[in-house]
């Protein structure tokens, strides 16, 4: 880093080099490429002990007894903890979120039963394996997605196996379906997707003078601090969580219990504790994208106008609800896609099972429902002999228009038309016939297009707020503590770009800190596409306060001089918050039910085109390229934004073609990366990102969130391309060669053996 120029003027009317809109490498990029960056699981301390977890081998069972005596007797073991050692054995206040350590019943293979701390990792793992649990197996609930005809004989929670429902309708869907010229139905199944953050959960914790400090990845440090405080019976102020640097998240670090395990062990042993889960533990016990079974029907008239969208979705949340109800809520809102139609209906259920615990995953309920809707749109276009892009264009929700289900306005920054056009104008789409004509032998070529919408932030009525704090030092150095946290997006670099331009100062005068509950004012989750939008807006606001103070002190004076005056006058510290806007008008939603449906005031969208080949004989799919147009408003850091888009598309490819966490009667079939396939560099084609010009009036410098919506259109675009290439429209994800081969054989009239 260069030495700051302390002679720089306190402000200039326009910064010499605006930072917003520049592609700036992440602050820690240099440390990453040299191997010097110390992640939370790289942390060590003297006197540190190593931890391991004993986990359930049954999907559903009463615990008759947990005998830790052999583990306790093992040489080198320092502590063995079970549920009775947890002061408040709950992960939060809702019992449906499960215990910290199961003490009466287990509801999933891999559920944590005991924690061990020992002098080294091998001893901890060996001792954990010595814990004897006597199980009384109970009937297994496979759930409505895995086993749609199941009649469950047991309830996993006192209220039954339904964790939540949501329903809403506008207009008269049945009448529209009954009179439409064309009704297209898709009955889709989407599978449990594992995040596969490359750094598995883990970190370190230390107990000192009545306070616990935890270094562990978290997408919501404030929430984790409360979970830890609740479980240990501490004041939240006595819990400090430092949540980066961390190796990826994608939703997996929203509800991760590891910070609680670490704190508990440090509290009991009074020693620094290290825990790093194995990939196998993470694969089996970690959260997944909710599997869904969705039936969507669209009604279209002869002119290609949508007269109805009707969706029914069932989601499997596994043994505990965590974010399941919110995921379903998001599905409901996005079930109508970016389309205008007078009649819409959504009926959704989220149910418990003894399968993998499901949680937040990038896209949060949208990829599951958008898949069938978009596939139906492409299929309808084919039936009507219309360009699939044109069919979508005729039905697009325009900026300022009203949401088809809830009737609230969608905001003026929404750029669905421009985003769709940007993708459709790409040669991949324009030259799709020439591409198809080049098919050779069994390799049939196809091109698909799809579009998606996703709200920014937690939604209306949820009290969603981001905050920032700023201190200017006598030497003019500016420190900003802001949330949401960074889990790989270089968010602090983008916050710094915003700060530099508000203050009219060089970016190297400004340091941004994230992910520390002691210093950063609570700002909510790194989730819901809200970080750049909400965190950036809070940074903009706090910097505007300092800017006003600098202006008041007189333009053109040396910053150092003015800074010293501000410090002397007790005006060195500033705080600001940005409450995310609620919808201007709740439309058809009763005002008192606003939080129940939580519609968004701000949306983004993405349109993607996929070019591929399918081997008609083997069912193999080869991707040749993906074009991703994304409506991100003003990109604060275009290089970072494009990186988010490319990474999102790759996860969409995995969801479409490769990734499936499989269970059979509650027992994992998938156990690790040897049988859970994520796309490699040879599976992933070149991805071309188009940042669609736009401006979100409520966001910092016109920016809005975009990192989730880019995951959504990939799978339906791939499936539509397969449909175009082969005439077979796959409705079960992932489209493995075996599934596609079976469907192709069926289409050829060959009955499977």
């Amino acid at each position, binding site marked *: 880093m260069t030495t700051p120029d302390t002679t720089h003027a306190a402000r200039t009317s326009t910064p010499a080099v605006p930072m917003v809109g520049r592609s700036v490498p992440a602050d820690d990029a240099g440390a990453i*490429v040299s191997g010097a960056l110390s992640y939370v699981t790289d942390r060590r301390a003297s006197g540190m002990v190593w931890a391991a977890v004993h986990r359930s081998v049954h999907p559903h069972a009463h615990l008759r007894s947990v005998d830790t005596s052999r583990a306790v007797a093992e040489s080198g073991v320092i502590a063995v903890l079970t549920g009775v050692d947890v002061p408040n054995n709950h992960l939060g206040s809702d019992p449906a979120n499960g215990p910290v350590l199961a003490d009466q019943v287990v509801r999933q293979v891999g559920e944590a039963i005991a924690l061990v701390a020992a002098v080294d990792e091998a001893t901890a793992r060996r001792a954990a394996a010595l814990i004897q649990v006597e199980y009384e197996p109970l009937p297994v609930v496979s759930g409505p997605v895995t086993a749609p005809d199941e009649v469950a004989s047991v309830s996993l929670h006192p209220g039954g196996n339904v964790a939540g429902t949501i329903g809403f309708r506008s207009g008269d869907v049945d009448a529209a379906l009954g009179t439409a010229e064309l009704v297209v139905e898709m009955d889709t199944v989407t599978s449990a997707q594992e995040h596969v953050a*490359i750094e598995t959960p883990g970190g370190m914790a230390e107990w000192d003078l009545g306070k616990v400090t935890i270094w562990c990845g978290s997408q919501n440090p404030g929430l984790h601090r409360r979970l830890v405080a609740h479980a240990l019976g501490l004041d939240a102020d006595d819990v400090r969580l430092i949540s980066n640097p961390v190796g990826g998240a994608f939703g997996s670090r929203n509800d991760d219990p590891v910070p609680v395990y670490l704190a508990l062990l440090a509290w009991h042993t009074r020693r620094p504790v290290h825990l790093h889960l194995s*990939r196998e533990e993470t694969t089996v016990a970690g959260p997944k994208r909710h599997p869904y079974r969705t039936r969507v029907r669209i009604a279209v008239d002869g002119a290609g106008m949508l007269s109805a969208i009707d969706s029914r979705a069932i989601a499997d949340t596994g043994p505990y609800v965590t974010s399941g109800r919110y995921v379903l809520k998001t599905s409901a809102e996005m079930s109508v896609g970016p389309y205008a139609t007078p009649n819409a209906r959504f009926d959704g259920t989220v149910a418990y099972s003894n399968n993998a615990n499901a949680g937040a995953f990038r896209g949060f309920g949208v990829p599951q429902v958008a898949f069938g809707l978009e596939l139906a749109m492409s299929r309808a276009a084919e039936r009507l002999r219309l360009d699939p892009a044109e069919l979508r264009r005729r039905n697009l929700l325009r900026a300022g228009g009203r949401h088809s289900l809830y009737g609230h306005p969608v905001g003026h920054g929404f750029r669905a038309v421009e985003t769709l056009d940007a993708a459709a104008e790409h040669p991949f789409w324009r030259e799709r016939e020439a591409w198809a004509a080049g098919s050779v032998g069994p390799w049939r070529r196809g091109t698909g297009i799809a579009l998606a919408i996703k709200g920014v932030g937690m939604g209306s009525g949820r009290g969603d707020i981001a905050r920032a704090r700023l201190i200017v030092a006598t030497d003019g150095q500016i420190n900003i503590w802001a949330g949401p946290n960074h889990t790989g997006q270089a968010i602090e670099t983008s916050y710094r770009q915003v700060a530099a331009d508000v203050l009219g100062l060089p970016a190297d005068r400004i340091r941004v800190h994230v992910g520390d509950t002691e210093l950063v004012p609570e700002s909510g989750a790194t989730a819901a596409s809200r970080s750049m939008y909400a965190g950036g807006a809070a940074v903009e606001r706090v910097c505007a306060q300092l800017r006003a103070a600098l202006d008041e002190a007189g333009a053109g004076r040396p910053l150092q001089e003015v800074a010293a005056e501000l410090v002397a006058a007790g005006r060195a510290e500033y705080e600001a918050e940005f409450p995310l806007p609620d919808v201007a008008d709740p439309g058809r939603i009763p005002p008192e039910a606003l939080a129940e449906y939580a519609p968004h005031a701000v949306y983004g969208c993405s349109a993607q085109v996929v070019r591929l080949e399918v081997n008609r004989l083997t069912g193999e799919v080869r991707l040749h390229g993906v074009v991703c147009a994304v409506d991100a408003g003003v990109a604060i850091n275009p*290089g970072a934004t494009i990186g988010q888009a490319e990474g999102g598309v790759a996860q969409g490819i995995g969801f479409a073609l490769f990734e499936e966490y499989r269970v059979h009667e509650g027992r994992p079939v998938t156990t*690790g*990366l040897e049988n859970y396939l*994520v796309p490699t560099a040879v599976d992933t084609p*070149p*991805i071309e990102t188009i940042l669609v010009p736009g401006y979100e009036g409520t966001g910092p410098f016109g920016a809005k969130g975009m990192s989730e919506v880019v995951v959504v259109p990939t799978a339906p675009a791939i499936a539509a391309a397969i449909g175009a290439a082969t005439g077979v429209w796959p409705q079960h994800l992932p489209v493995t060669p075996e599934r596609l081969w079976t469907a192709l054989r069926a289409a050829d009239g060959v009955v499977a053996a």
Partner: protein
Amino acid sequence: MNVNGTAVTGYDAGARLLDVIREHLGLRGTKEGCGVGECGSCTVLLDGEPVCSCLVLAGQAEGREVTTVEGLASCPAGARLREQLVDHQALQCGYCIPGVMVSATAHLSRTEEVTEESVRTAISGNLCRCTGYTKLVSAVLTAASDTGAHS
């Protein structure tokens, strides 16, 4: 064995090379992502060959030259790669990057005609969950052209 050019002794020959590197030597640039040779985060060079250090016992590296991500700066291809990965904004969380650095450096060091396909194959044992690989591939190709290896 030599690690990054320095002789190393006093380790348990039956330990995983990964653990000797991380815990005995404290070189924590080398990461563990799966422990079974599937993710490539623990890739190091063993006599110039990329290997998953979670699959090698320290005793198997005896008398040999081990290069970790920390040792790559001393070779020209490694230094160029560092620069290009940063400039291309080719990394996000960065946890896979030490492994990618090692695999790509080996590829550049011993390949005359580096192509997009050859780069994708060379890093196909390194799982990255953040980037979608597009920028990683561009960065490696640019580093290759700077070292004269890009056809």
